[in-house]
């Protein structure tokens, strides 16, 4: 890597080499049975350089291709954007714990057993259900070097358990599922299966809802599927810089309900979304985005921050394969003071939404969401009475989160990148097929 950096600085004023190597094992169950054992190894190198003030960029996974890497990056620099930023010189990184050597030593047999336990528990509860389950583990090593002396190295471990069940009765299909992840080895297959059993229990009976405005409680899964995509776009410094964020000019203003608090936090210990620095070597920080309903910040990488005359928040991400862009590490919505059961008890007629399918397919920038309730329940007189189908829930997050009825007391990690409690919206548009 030092070699490559040395070659690059011959051709450019500044250069940065980003290397990521990963190794993982995946155990897959299909139709209730063990089906696949997979291992994956991958290394990739990205070279970013600044030549005559412009940014050039090339990547490869081919270890023998280093010389071409430099010439490819030099070629793209003729057209590249003007570099407004400076690569970080040697930084001070606060330790963020993301590696547990225990993950490496978990045997295949143990992973298979975890999968078997999840499948056994769900199929015993609901005969006829067909489960797909996954148990995954692995390590990721990241290494960054730049020509200004910046250097960062860290190693991360991850472990995840997940199960999805489909229950088919003639042409009716019910989908349930749960997954958890950590940097520690996980052994709580019972907790994962337990969450699925709760869904199966609540979905046992069927109920129908009228087409009108109704109160809706989003569970953590519901928040992730319905509300998060517009928030991620709106707090992205790049969207703000381009004037395409509805809250871009509302810093310091109350936009959301006073109960709503949001931050980006890559420093939580042993979370797979955490890391000591971002993909540009900028130290991780916890960034407050909404405090008591007031917009307090946005997330930035180096270039976007420089163009917006502010500082990087350590959110430079290369997840999409190109040059770093601002991206959340993990969104954390602060818990409130209401129990989930209290929210349900408060509703005369309404919905609990666990999964809204297709919600992110509309005008995400404008804050719109509209989707089919893939898993959700009808509430009548304070009680969940059954599962709803053929039902759409629609709204706009700037209206829906302006006045929320309550925020839940218990927050949960969903999909690895979001920690959220349930959120109770007093009125959303519901359309249902007669």
């Amino acid at each position, binding site marked *: 890597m030092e070699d490559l950096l040395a070659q690059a600085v011959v051709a450019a004023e500044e250069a940065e080499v980003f290397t990521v190597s990963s190794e993982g094992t995946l155990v897959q169950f299909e*139709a209730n049975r*063990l*089906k*696949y*054992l*997979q*291992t*994956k*190894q*991958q*290394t*990739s190198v990205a070279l970013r350089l600044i030549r005559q003030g412009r940014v050039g*960029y*090339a*990547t*490869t*996974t*081919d*270890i023998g291709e280093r010389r*071409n890497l430099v010439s*490819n*990056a030099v*070629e*793209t620099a003729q*057209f*590249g*954007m003007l570099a407004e930023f400076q690569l970080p010189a040697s930084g001070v990184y606060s330790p963020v714990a993301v590696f547990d050597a225990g993950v490496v030593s978990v045997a295949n047999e143990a992973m298979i057993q975890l999968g078997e336990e999840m499948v056994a528990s769900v199929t015993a509860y609901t005969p*006829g259900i*067909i489960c797909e389950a996954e148990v995954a583990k692995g390590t990721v090593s990241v290494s960054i070097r730049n020509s200004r002396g910046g250097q960062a190295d860290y190693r991360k471990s991850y472990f995840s358990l997940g199960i999805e069940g*489909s229950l*088919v009765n*003639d*042409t009716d*299909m019910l*989908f349930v599922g749960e997954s958890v992840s950590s940097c520690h080895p996980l052994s709580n297959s019972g907790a994962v299966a337990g969450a699925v059993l709760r869904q199966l229990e609540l979905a046992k009976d069927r109920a129908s809802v009228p*087409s009108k405005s109704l109160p809706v409680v989003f569970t953590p899964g519901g928040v992730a599927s319905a509300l998060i995509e517009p928030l991620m776009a709106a707090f992205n410094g790049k969207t703000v*810089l*381009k*004037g395409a964020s*509805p809250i871009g000019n509302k810093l310091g203003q109350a936009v959301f309900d006073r109960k709503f608090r949001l931050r980006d936090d890559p420093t939580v210990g042993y979370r797979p979304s955490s890391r000591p620095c971002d993909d540009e070597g900028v130290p991780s920080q916890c960034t407050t985005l909404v405090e008591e309903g007031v917009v307090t910040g946005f997330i930035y990488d180096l270039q976007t921050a420089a163009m917006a005359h502010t500082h990087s928040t350590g959110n430079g991400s290369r997840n999409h*394969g*190109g*040059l770093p*862009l601002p991206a959340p590490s993990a969104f954390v919505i602060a818990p409130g003071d209401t129990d989930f059961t209290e929210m349900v008890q408060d509703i005369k007629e309404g919905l609990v939404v666990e999964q809204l*399918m*297709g919600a*992110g*397919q509309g*005008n*995400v920038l404008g*804050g719109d969401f*509209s989707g*089919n309730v*893939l898993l959700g329940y009808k509430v009548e007189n304070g009680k969940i009475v059954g599962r709803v189908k*053929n039902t*759409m829930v*629609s709204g706009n997050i700037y209206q829906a989160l302006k006045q929320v009825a309550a925020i839940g007391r218990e927050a949960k990690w969903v999909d690895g990148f979001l920690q959220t409690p349930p959120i109770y919206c007093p009125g959303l*548009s519901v*359309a249902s097929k*007669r």
Partner: protein
Amino acid sequence: MTIKDIGQELAGVIGKCDADYVEAHLEESQTSHVVYRGRELDSIGRATAIGGNVRAMVKGGWGFVSFNDLNNLPERVALAVKQARFVGREASQLVAAEPVVATVSVEADRDPVAIPLAEKKQLMDEYNDIIWRTPEIQTSTVGYADSRKQTIFLSSAGSFIEQTRADITLRLAAVAARDGDIQQVGLSVGSRGDFSILQSYHDEVAHMAERAVVLLSAPQIKGGEYTVVLDPVLAGVFVHEAFGHLSESDFVYENERVRRIMTLGRQFGHPELNIVDTATIPGLRGSYQYDDEGMPATRTYLIREGKLVGRLHSRETAAKMNEKPTGNARAINHRYPPIVRMTNTYIEPGVVSLADMVGGIKEGIYAKNWYGGTTSMEMFTFSAGEAYMIRHGKIAEMLRPVVLTGNVFNTLENIDAIGDDLTMNQGGGCGKGGQMPLPVSNGSPHIRISRCLVGGG
């Protein structure tokens, strides 16, 4: 050493394994991209990648090892076999396949990656300028990406197939803003590596930008059931989401209850409805000669005269369902095993003109273009990039974007008119099992659906 040389060495190793079946994929690719976000060029770059995998089957269990370090391949083969043995607990079932030794050179000389970056950038400049010429445009996205990939497939049965494919995608978006209201319109096109096809979208880009501005003053529809007419682009997304995914046999073959509702011969729609998936049409983004299990591409009727008549298979699903293989096992790249996927999926044309279709509607929606779509097999949603009210048989005012949803078991029945104007859309990408976006295309003539559920404000 080229990947072909490496493959030839590997052929000797996988032929001698103690396994029911072993295959390997080797892959080498080059890509380039040009992205504008707003007026400024945001990212321009080149990438190369190399890698491979070995997949082994022992007693019905699969082992899979992927890597991009091409050293010590015999060890990787041994690991894949060991993993398969660890998993296998029953009998291996794969439909019979003739060994194929072939070099597919149809597109070997087509290389969009080699076109100078300056040429690509200039075209993107032109499109971005068109967007920015429109008043009240707040920002834009122009994302171009191309790739050229050489693959080697080899199997313990003696297959050795060399294929090359090129692919281009172009995604554009215009964002308009007024008084804190933000509206966006997108355009997504693609080609099978032919850059010249992307050079003639100037009018469409201008129209896209104008529509983003019009949306700022467009009303939102009230949610509920409507008669909807879909244009060929959106109807193509509809057929992919509403029916295509359900015809992928990996959801069916191990699930007794799904097999019962997906029996061949079941009536799904009117006798005028015919749905086809085929990888055999040259030049479409979902096409190929051999799939990632080395099986020849086919043309498969999924629905014929309204009845379920076929489905898409891998070698394993075909064997376990005792049906003919269709050559639909595809992997997005060497990091994933092949799974059952669509290729180019479309509704065959009927005889109804658009005017006749709209003419009979008192109040309905005309929905065009796509934002996206997804499915849970039974339920699906798809969203229109452009929508208009239909009033008294005429297309009327423009609406804010609409999301439509339905249930496959009654929505296909509700297709009551099929147009005469089949068009294939090359801008799509399909996601399944973490493998996304896989190049596919889909298409349809205009179609009319009665009682379609539409989300609204």
